């Protein structure tokens, strides 16, 4: 089989008029996905030069839900867009050194764009299903390649601006921007292909978005979670996976709250004897799923007052978990002081289940789930 030539692709559907229209929505999805990804990355950073807001409580739930929804919608959009430009992969090299150089540069930039875009969507989808068939760090790599992807999108828009303006400024059936060989009608009209593409993006979103949008749970047949779980909330990491089953159920469990020399050690009955607050707060994971819960426990601020921690102090929260990237997390001063931030002892009116962080866990508003530390052993002011 010979390698095809650009002129072999004769369908009028493979036209810049279609590419630009799909590309516009793909660009919007990539832009939203990039910005919400930046929010998520910043929220997980230990250093917050600008405080991450604690309100609205559902903020991270919305931004991370949007991150996964726009990434999902981008899959059909990217595939159709690449389909429309596929013939250009086989175009003949330009003549003349200047044109040849520009052509090579453009091909190089598109190669980087396709490689980074496919990488972002594939790694994000796999991560959402907690599938890690690679050796690199997901968070580091997904973050770094996101900058490469968005940079190549911006460069691509700049390079293609005249074509984009020409295509969007005229009727979709206008042949002005078509390749010379693209003269045969397709099995669909261009409008038909565009409608099919919007339909495909909509189906992809509805089939998966129930992980973040509870009313869609029933129809999201491909969602990574049904939303069910112990006490009505799914579990990201189980007690068995975190290897805390023994340490979390010991009768001599004590929560240590420390500020330099001053420290208190509290058993679970001690904690239950302190004033209790009940809050409705979502748990929203970086993988995109989220669920609301009714949490009851001791306000973290009340615990810090026991050892005279000044307002606005960042504190370290350490889990019983012995290894893993989020064994110790920073609870920033604005979160530690917020009235809604609890050391939760109960969920939905019952003692926390082991998988939800028994004997005690952090739950704070507007925060990624990985920072809502479970099986809490220590809360302390860092030395």
């Amino acid at each position: 089989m010979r390698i095809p030539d650009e002129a072999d692709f004769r369908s009028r559907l493979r036209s810049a008029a279609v590419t630009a229209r799909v590309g516009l929505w793909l660009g919007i999805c990539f832009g939203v996905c990039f910005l919400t990804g930046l929010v998520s990355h910043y929220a997980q950073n230990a250093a917050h030069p600008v405080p991450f807001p604690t309100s609205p409580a559902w903020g991270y739930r919305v931004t991370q839900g949007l991150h996964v929804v726009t990434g999902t919608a981008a899959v059909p959009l990217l595939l159709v867009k690449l389909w429309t430009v596929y013939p250009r992969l086989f175009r003949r090299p330009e003549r003349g050194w200047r044109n040849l150089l520009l052509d090579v540069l453009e091909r190089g930039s598109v190669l980087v764009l396709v490689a980074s875009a496919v990488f972002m969507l594939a790694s994000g989808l796999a991560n959402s299903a907690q599938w890690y068939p690679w050796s690199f760090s997901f968070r580091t790599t997904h973050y770094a390649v996101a900058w490469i992807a968005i940079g190549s999108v911006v460069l691509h828009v700049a390079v293609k601006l005249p074509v984009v303006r020409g295509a969007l400024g005229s009727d979709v059936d206008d042949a002005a921007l078509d390749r010379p060989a693209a003269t045969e009608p397709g099995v669909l009209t261009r409008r038909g292909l565009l409608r099919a593409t919007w339909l495909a993006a909509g189906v992809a979103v509805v089939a998966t978005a129930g992980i973040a949008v509870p009313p869609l749970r029933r129809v999201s047949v491909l969602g990574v979670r049904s939303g069910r779980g112990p006490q009505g909330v799914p579990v990201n990491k189980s007690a068995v996976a975190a290897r805390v089953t023994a340490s979390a159920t010991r009768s001599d469990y004590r929560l240590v709250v420390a500020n330099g020399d001053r420290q208190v050690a509290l058993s679970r009955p001690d904690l239950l004897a302190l004033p209790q607050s009940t809050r409705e707060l979502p748990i929203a994971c970086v993988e995109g799923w989220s669920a609301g819960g009714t949490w009851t426990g001791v306000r973290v601020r009340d615990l810090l007052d026991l050892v005279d921690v000044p307002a606005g102090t960042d504190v370290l929260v350490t889990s019983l978990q012995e290894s893993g990237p989020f064994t110790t997390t920073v609870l920033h001063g604005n979160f530690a002081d917020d009235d809604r931030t609890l050391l939760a002892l109960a969920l939905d009116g019952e003692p926390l289940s082991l998988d939800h962080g028994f004997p005690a866990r952090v739950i704070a508003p507007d925060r990624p789930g990985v920072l809502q530390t479970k099986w809490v052993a220590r809360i302390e002011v860092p030395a």
Partner: protein
Amino acid sequence: MIRSMRWATGAAGVALALYGGWLLVTREDRLGDVALWLVAGVVLHDAVLAAIVVVLGALAVRLAPAPARAPLAVGFVMLGPVTLLAVPVLGRFGARADNPTLLDRDYTAGWLVLAGITTVAVVGATLVRSRRGSGKG
């Protein structure tokens, strides 16, 4: 004016991408694996997936009756991408025995429902179109 804005936008894009490249090489140790994934994505799309779609398109034009072609194309655009999206859940690669709340749906059944709805819609549209006696769409 437009010309200088284009150059400025292009330069900004290059700077953003270079920043990403710098982040990658300074913060990630397993660069060989990252490179493999970046290249594999392009090769799998350009040499495998796109080629399969070209072949399927040619087969459909040759084998399918005229009134079925447009409905088949729409059905393919709808079901193809969603099937690729579903690979991680259909394979259940991330499933863990200690966490029954993860990947807790019957994804094969879910996919079959989507495929069934698509098939019914394609067959229905084909029948309507052939009754109208029109093969154009």
